[in-house]
């Protein structure tokens, strides 16, 4: 899931202070799981903004609301009329949600209420850990299930480097050395021989380096476009 964390109220205040009607708009999926931007936290942020406005002597209407996901239009379409009653939407969805909603609110700005941090897992209640970087070319089968792209500070394809120190990374004693973990893992899997294979330089064009990414599934699009065309024709005949 996508993990985020709340922005400090001071930063949020600077974004919202000049608006009169603010909607704090929560997303009840990934960012709710990490207690950053679900409906509950949207209400919390709204409360803080109201108190801040009061401290600053500003009169401002601040409400909150939430939908299941901001990244599929069907989820927020039913509330779009309500959303459009505000002059600012402070979205507590991840950056995906902020972008996506922003495309659909016309002249109403959508600002981010949280910082989108990484793709991670719930390591323990309240602890979220980055485990994937979305590079577009997965090699986890070669690295004992541990991703060097996301978890090695240097994104090394052939490690460890000289900075490994008793299983920890040279950047911090609190950070595990991914390559130490990889070696331990493939040892446990009895595939240590893989470690002698050199992983060739990667083509990073599948990652961010190749520019913005988009996936279009032919088998779904073909059907959908035909259906759309039919509707258009039917509409034309009317």
């Amino acid at each position, binding site marked *: 899931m996508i993990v985020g964390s709340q922005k*400090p*109220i*001071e930063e949020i205040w600077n974004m919202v202070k000049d608006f009169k009607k603010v909607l704090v708009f929560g997303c*009840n*999926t990934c960012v*709710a*799981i990490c*207690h950053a931007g*679900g*409906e*509950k*936290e949207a*209400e*919390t942020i709204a*409360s*803080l903004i*109201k*108190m*801040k406005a*009061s*401290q600053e*002597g500003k009169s401002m209407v601040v409400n909150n609301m*939430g939908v*299941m996901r901001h990244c599929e239009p069907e989820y927020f379409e039913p509330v779009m009329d309500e959303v459009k009653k505000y002059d600012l939407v402070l979205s507590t969805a991840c950056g995906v949600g902020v972008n996506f909603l922003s495309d659909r609110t016309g002249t109403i700005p959508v600002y981010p209420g949280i910082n989108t941090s990484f793709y991670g897992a*719930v390591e323990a*209640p309240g602890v979220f850990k980055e485990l994937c970087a979305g590079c577009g070319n997965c090699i986890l089968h070669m690295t004992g299930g541990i991703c060097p792209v996301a978890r090695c500070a240097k994104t090394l394809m052939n490690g460890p480097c000289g900075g490994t120190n008793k299983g920890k990374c040279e950047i911090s004693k609190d950070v595990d050395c991914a390559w130490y973990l990889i070696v331990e893992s493939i040892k446990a899997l009895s595939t240590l021989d893989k470690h002698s294979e050199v992983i060739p330089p990667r083509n990073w064009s599948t990652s961010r380096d190749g520019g913005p990414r988009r996936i279009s599934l032919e088998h779904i699009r073909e059907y959908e476009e035909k259906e759309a065309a039919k509707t258009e024709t039917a509409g034309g005949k009317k």
Partner: protein
Amino acid sequence: MAPETTCTPTEYRPYGAEIKETRPYSPCRAACPAHTDVQAYVGLIAQGKYTEAFEVITSVNPIASVCSMICHHPCEQSCRRCGVDEPLAVRHLKRFAIEKSRDYRRAKRKLVQKTKGKSIGIVGSGPSGLTAARDLANLGYNVTIYERHPVLGGMLASAIPPYRLPREVLKEDIDDVVTKGIEVKTNFEVGRDAKLDDLMKKHDAVLIAIGLSLSRSLNIPGVDGPGVLLAIPFLEDVAFGRKPELGEKVLVIGGGNVAMDVARSARRLGVQNVEMVCLENEQEIPAWKWEVDEAVEEAIKINYRWGPKAIKREGDMVKGLEVTKVLSVFDANKRFAPTFDNNVTTLLEADTIIITIGQMSNLSFLKDSAVKVDERGRVEWNPATQMSSARNVFVAGEVVTGPGSAIAAVANGHRSAIAMHLFLQGESIEGKLPVQEKDTIAQMPSEVVEKISKEQRMTVRHLAPEVRVKTMDHFEEGYTEKEALEEAGRCRGCGGGAVVDQKKCMACLTCLRVCPYGAPVVEAFSTIRPEYCQACGLCAPECPAQAISMVSYDVREIRNTLPAVIGTVDPRRQEPVIVALLCTHHAGLLGLDLPKNVCSVPVHCTSRIDILDMLKAFESGADGVAVVRCGDGKCKYKDIAPRVNARVKRVQDLLGMLKIEPGRVEILSATSTNGDNPYLLACADFSERVKKIGLRVGR
């Protein structure tokens, strides 16, 4: 107008009434023939909302005062606390709430407008007749009650001895019903003063609710003659203050609850030597255990497992009852089929014998009427429509259901009222009457039982047996307010717990991690299993999607009401405005008088306090917020404190971001001291600390 499908139209619906209908009932509610929402009213009592509790009770039970004295309380027998320690004392709590609401109930009595333009005659004014009368009057019908006795109430007035049911208690219930504008004809015996046909012509519909007013007798030698009495005439004498003629040694034949009434009344009429004889043994005896225990306390001897054979007389005078040893009472199919050892007999000496072996209806008034009676002498009726064989004549209560409890007759009265309403509105009845059997929450799993602390049931004081047998006076004391609050606090809130909104839940597992009782199961979404849930409310404020609500209370109530509770904050105030969120799960708040600057917000358990509630207090201008837990390890729930502490800490962090001093919110414990109320001390100390921090300006 579409006929109402509920039993009675009523102004008050407890929070969650609608959703409760879609979910399994708490066992207490399902066990009550009238489906009284026990969890709701006990919860209201625990919050000190006595008149609301009264409303919940009386919404389905027009003889609530009566039931608060005499109900056999199947709710208690089915209480899920039975598996932990002892059941809730529901009947005593009911009595407490009703007695606390006396002025309220009297003030709200009023005439109901007769809007239907149709009239109904009700024959009999016992529990079923009174219930139907109330329901039909509420619906706007003209109702006339015909009662053969000088007062209303049926058996409640004419047979239940006053030591169990003080008549002023019964009068409260009857006044509630009659003041709706019901025509009452007492001393009016249908069959004597009018024919049923006359009533059928006079009214658009007639209800026969005459109960079982005739005692059955025994067909044994010696039964005829002086010294042998039947139960009902005897009890009528007792009820109306007449002195039945008794000897020095009374023997009551029968082991049912009416037999107990007879024997115990005989004791109270001054007979020292009262014995009972019944076919059954101690386990089989049909009377309620408490009746048996109280009778034994009153020095009544019960001769178990003897069957009456003959009444022995010397001349006219009764000498005693010859009895035969009973071998068994029930056959393999648990049907009543007593067997005897005729070789073993004995004589139970007595000079007065009272036969209390059952009752039947007096159906003589149905002779030559359109209402058919079957070959066994019972009124023919259709339980699906509550109708007799005559088109506009309905039946209710024990006349058709056979002997049962007062509250079962109430339930049947409701059914008849709905049936008559449908009939008079030209609707079909079949399939529209309420279903008696309800889905019920299962018993508590053993792993949950282990987590519930044992709390002794509050006992009720009885007058000492040697004192109480001297009069017909009621002998059971009611709860004090403190006792009632403590007892109500024992309720585990079955059926009032957490519910997940499936449209909002994204199966994040937070509730599963938070719940101390293992109630949630998370698949595509979370489901909170009611048999595990203790309604502590810990989960709802933790849910990141706000997908959890509670059946029995509004999770937003505190923050919604806080602005009004705090009111306008005076900028020139001298004392800080303190919001104190106080655990009310104990009688600790009773008589608590907080300083004016402290706004007290009672909360069932601090587990229910959301960070948003605390923030709302500051938003509304509070200078400080105290979360006051019950002290001394008294918490009714498990593992609450760490979660609540974490919430307070989070609020402190959030306030820090707004440069509001974190010391303005604290979690406190009401730990008992020798002197002042611990809640008062905690709040006063906190108020001083906040005063030192200073008053908030330009909030």
